[in-house]
């Protein structure tokens, strides 16, 4: 509830979000037993940093992740912005109630007016009064490949975003900074598309049965073998939908009496899966190892609530790259913790598979770790592979168990054959098994593009979140009015971006998000960067105070570094 309790868990220089912590170590935590020590000093310059040996040695290269704090003035103005919007929201609702303003909302049927209302009034307050003002920034229909450039259908609204009409015109060649097309496999030409069309001709698009019945097609088996090889695990299983891979498999693994430790910023599918499993869920601070370790220790010491029986098993749920923060999971530390406390690890690589690591094998590859240390490797094919669906990889026993008990294998239609083929071809390309170096080139290109794009944005003075190597680049907008303005101004400059606000982010941390792709050329990135800079000046988005302080300031504050030396 209070700031104190929130920041107690966060600590020292490892924590991005807090700079001051007066009561570090004041929570009865005895240090020498913990794997990752808590820092006691409030803030230290990097030169003075003394890292605990066990933790720094875990990283083979620098791990730079930045979450510059919100400037106070900006925070105050943001709250004021929301305040004004809320006041106007009430005013408008009042006018609508008194029929002084036309209400565009769909109404309940006359016959059902006396039913219990389907929605409570307040439920849609936010949608009606805040989201509706900037609704044009989302769901923009596209009519081409979601590649580096895309064609958008032009929409106009005669009634302030309540309805949209298509003018019939097309916005051609909009630079796409929004799609999760990390390796540029969203293509309609080339081997992927060719093999997928051959597959369509042969198999058709549907399957009309489940894996356990008669929906287990040879293509699925081929993909599963390939995916296991790609991931470096014993066995793997694929599913028709990424979201469902999480929500339908976690319940098969965990049950009542088990404990799930989940990162606070985990994706909705993980949260749903955890909830459906019936296990107890505890949440740790985003990417915060002290918080995780504390929960693990508490779980060991206290056991289950009330009965104090020991937990049956403990599962740590994390993602590889967090799609709204652009941060990369601190996997080496998590693996160390998981080994020490004998917990299991479920790693969701929805965004990181293909997008990270020198060989595109995701976050495990990025840190140079052994995939066997991760008990459950999960990921999706939607992003880097330009397809759809998800996989789970791991030990043979795990996958065999899922073959029998996964909700998806028993009740859901299996993956469409052409989609399966697209994944096979793109995966082979990344692995270099197609006999070319195209896959490797894409990986290099993505990594180059990411570094360039992040560096340039940083130089321009924007506050950008996340890890330096993450292709997901959130740029902070903060104020609600700027969400809409940024999206629209960028579209005017022929650049399609994603803007997000509450409830996808904390209320004051509205942001724009760019997803860098291997398909972006340097020229496209420069065009985009220039436009971003222009809009940034127009909307006064260059909040970062690091630049103003010059080089001295760049590496202080929330930059956290773990060096090998």
């Amino acid at each position, binding site marked *: 509830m209070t*700031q104190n309790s929130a920041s107690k868990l966060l600590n020292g220089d490892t924590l991005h979000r807090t700079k001051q912590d007066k009561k570090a170590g004041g929570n009865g935590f005895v240090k020498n037993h913990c794997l990752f020590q808590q820092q006691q000093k409030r803030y230290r310059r990097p030169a003075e940093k003394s890292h605990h040996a066990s933790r720094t040695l875990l990283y083979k290269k620098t791990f730079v992740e930045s979450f510059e704090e919100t400037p106070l003035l900006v925070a105050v103005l943001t709250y004021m912005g929301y305040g004004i919007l809320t006041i106007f929201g009430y005013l408008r609702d009042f006018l609508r109630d008194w029929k002084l303003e036309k209400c565009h909302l769909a109404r309940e*049927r006359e016959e059902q007016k006396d039913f219990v209302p*389907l929605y409570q009034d307040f439920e849609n307050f936010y949608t009606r009064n805040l989201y509706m003002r900037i609704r044009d920034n989302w769901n923009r229909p596209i009519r081409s*490949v979601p590649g580096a450039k895309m064609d958008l259908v032009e929409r106009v609204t005669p009634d302030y975003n309540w309805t949209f009409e298509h003018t019939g015109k097309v916005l051609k060649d909009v630079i796409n900074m929004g799609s999760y097309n990390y390796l540029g496999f969203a293509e309609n030409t080339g081997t992927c598309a060719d093999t997928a069309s051959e597959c369509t001709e042969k198999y058709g698009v549907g399957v009309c*049965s489940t894996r356990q019945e008669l929906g287990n097609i040879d293509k699925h088996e081929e993909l599963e073998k390939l995916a296991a090889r790609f991931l470096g695990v014993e066995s793997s299983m694929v599913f028709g939908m990424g979201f469902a891979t999480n929500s339908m498999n976690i319940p098969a693994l965990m049950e009542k009496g088990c404990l799930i430790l989940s990162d606070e910023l985990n994706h909705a599918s993980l949260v749903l899966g955890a909830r459906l499993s019936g296990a107890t869920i505890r949440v740790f601070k985003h990417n915060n190892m002290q918080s995780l370790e504390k929960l693990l220790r508490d779980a060991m010491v206290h056991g289950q609530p009330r009965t104090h029986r020991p937990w049956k098993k403990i599962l740590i749920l994390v993602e590889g790259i967090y799609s709204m923060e652009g941060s990369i999971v601190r996997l080496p530390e998590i693996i160390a913790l998981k080994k020490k406390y004998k917990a299991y690890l479920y790693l969701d690589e929805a965004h990181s598979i293909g997008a990270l690591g020198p060989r595109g094998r995701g976050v495990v590859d990025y840190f140079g770790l052994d995939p066997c240390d991760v008990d459950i490797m999960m990921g999706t094919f939607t992003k880097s592979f330009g397809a759809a669906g998800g996989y789970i990889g791991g030990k043979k026993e795990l996958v065999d168990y899922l073959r029998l008990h996964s909700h998806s294998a028993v009740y859901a239609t299996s993956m469409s054959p052409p989609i399966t083929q697209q994944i096979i071809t793109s995966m082979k390309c990344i692995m270099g098994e197609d006999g070319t170096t195209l896959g490797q080139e894409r990986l290099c290109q993505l990594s180059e593009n990411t570094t360039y794009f992040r560096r340039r944005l940083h130089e321009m003075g924007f506050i950008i979140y996340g890890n330096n190597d993450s292709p997901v680049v959130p740029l902070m907008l903060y104020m609600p009015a700027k969400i809409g303005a940024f999206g629209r101004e960028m579209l005017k400059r022929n650049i399609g971006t994603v803007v997000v606000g509450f409830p996808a982010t904390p209320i004051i941390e509205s942001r724009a998000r760019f997803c860098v792709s291997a398909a972006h050329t340097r020229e496209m990135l420069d065009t985009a960067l220039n436009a971003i800079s222009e809009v940034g000046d127009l909307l006064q988005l260059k909040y970062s105070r690091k630049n103003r302080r010059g080089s001295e300031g760049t590496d202080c504050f929330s930059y956290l570094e773990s060096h090998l030396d």
Partner: protein
Amino acid sequence: MKTFINLYKHTHTHTHTHTHTHIVMSGSSTRPRLMKHAHAQSRDSVKMAAGQQWVLVEMVQAFYEAPAYHLILEGILILWIIRLLFSKTYKLQERSDLTEKEKEELIEEWQPEPLVPPVSKDHPSLNYDVVTGPPSHKIIVNGKECINFASFNFLGLLDSERVKLKALLSLKKYGVGTCGPRGFYGTFDVHLELEERLAKFMRTEEAIIYSYGFATIASAIPAYSKRGDIIFVDEAACFSIQKGLQASRSFVKHFKHNDMEDLERLLKEQEIEDQKNPRKARVIRRFIVVEGLYINTADICPLPDLVKLKYKYKVRIFLEESMSFGVLGEHGRGVTEHFGVNIDDIDLISANMENALASIGGFCCGRSFVIDHQRLSGQGYCFSASLPPMLASAAIEALNIMEEDPGIFRVLQDKCKHVHKALQGTPGLKVVGEPLAPALHLQLENSTGSRTNDLKLLRAIVDYSMDRQIALTLARYLEKEERFLPPPSIRVVVTVEQTQEEIERAAQCIREAAVKILK
């Protein structure tokens, strides 16, 4: 004297953490009022303020009229609360008197259960049957060509050249994946077209598509029904409905399969309950969730009776039509058309596009008032990548075929009746399901008493048929997860492509197998 203070505290030290604490203090108030505050942002405040009137002026007036001692008292109270907020918080529950050494020992001693229990290598379901090539009318299972009596390809659209052609054209235009959720450049013009076409086909105001059939109803239910709401659901409801119910965290009441009296009993009970606490009853939403044609029992829900109950007890109806969409009714609109029920009387219809339409994904349709809500609240819609455009195009073309030739439904219904009749009198097996159902169940007449043995017998019949080129399948369930586990059965699926002769052959084959294996 009315006083009401709504205090928002914004802590802004240098930390990034922000709080908006919200304290409501009411003195000797008879009618609580809310002061609209510039910072009223949290959901709770919205909730609180919604029903209240705008009384800022009166608020200020009351403030002036209040006696001094009152103001001083409240001032002290505020200061005290601020102090409480800043003071250290204790978690009583987690205090333990263990020493560090004891803790270490506990950590050392603890051994987790294995991540998954061991699976025996020869579990009958572990080795899936492998289908080589398309699972269409002629299907190659484990290297043997069979006639397909197992895939839900009711209308035979899976290998329709027209559908394939449209899918290919779409692939040429859009590529395969969408690389994003609907909100973030994952909405393609074909998605909008498909939604429009589905709405038109079903004669509803709006439709919304999901990228996975299973996720459709499982996301739709929790979008409306929340904690505290009540859902009346048929015992035979399929697994995705069960998951939707679980995700909604609502209060679930099961009624006996297709038993309207039992449902009415529950509704009456609820009515009595409501009279006890009418204020609470005014905010509890109620839903009846049923399937049009049950996948687990192959029979049709008594929809007209349900509609009557709906208006009598003011409950909304959610209808799952995965099996009946594209099957029942003159134009394949499903169970509403079958019974001639006004589709507007059903609050929400959901179906998947993986059976009759032979594509992938699912949709919900109904009035805009209902459906539109899912665009921000349907988890499987908002947080998942959208349907690959080629699959949407395939579904559009399948709809075209259905619209152009409604005769196809007649053919299917005749075939269903034919199969139903042909399977009657199989020794030792009983046919479960209505003559109109395209997916029937064959159950053992006399169970051996053990599920495993029953399954073994049925499996033997399936294998026997498979050897004679009739592809059947056991209906699969997660035995521990199903709330009401249906008895073991063989599923026989009817499609328009099966000829008279093939149906006779299949029936003959099953009969032979039954005689041989069950005797």
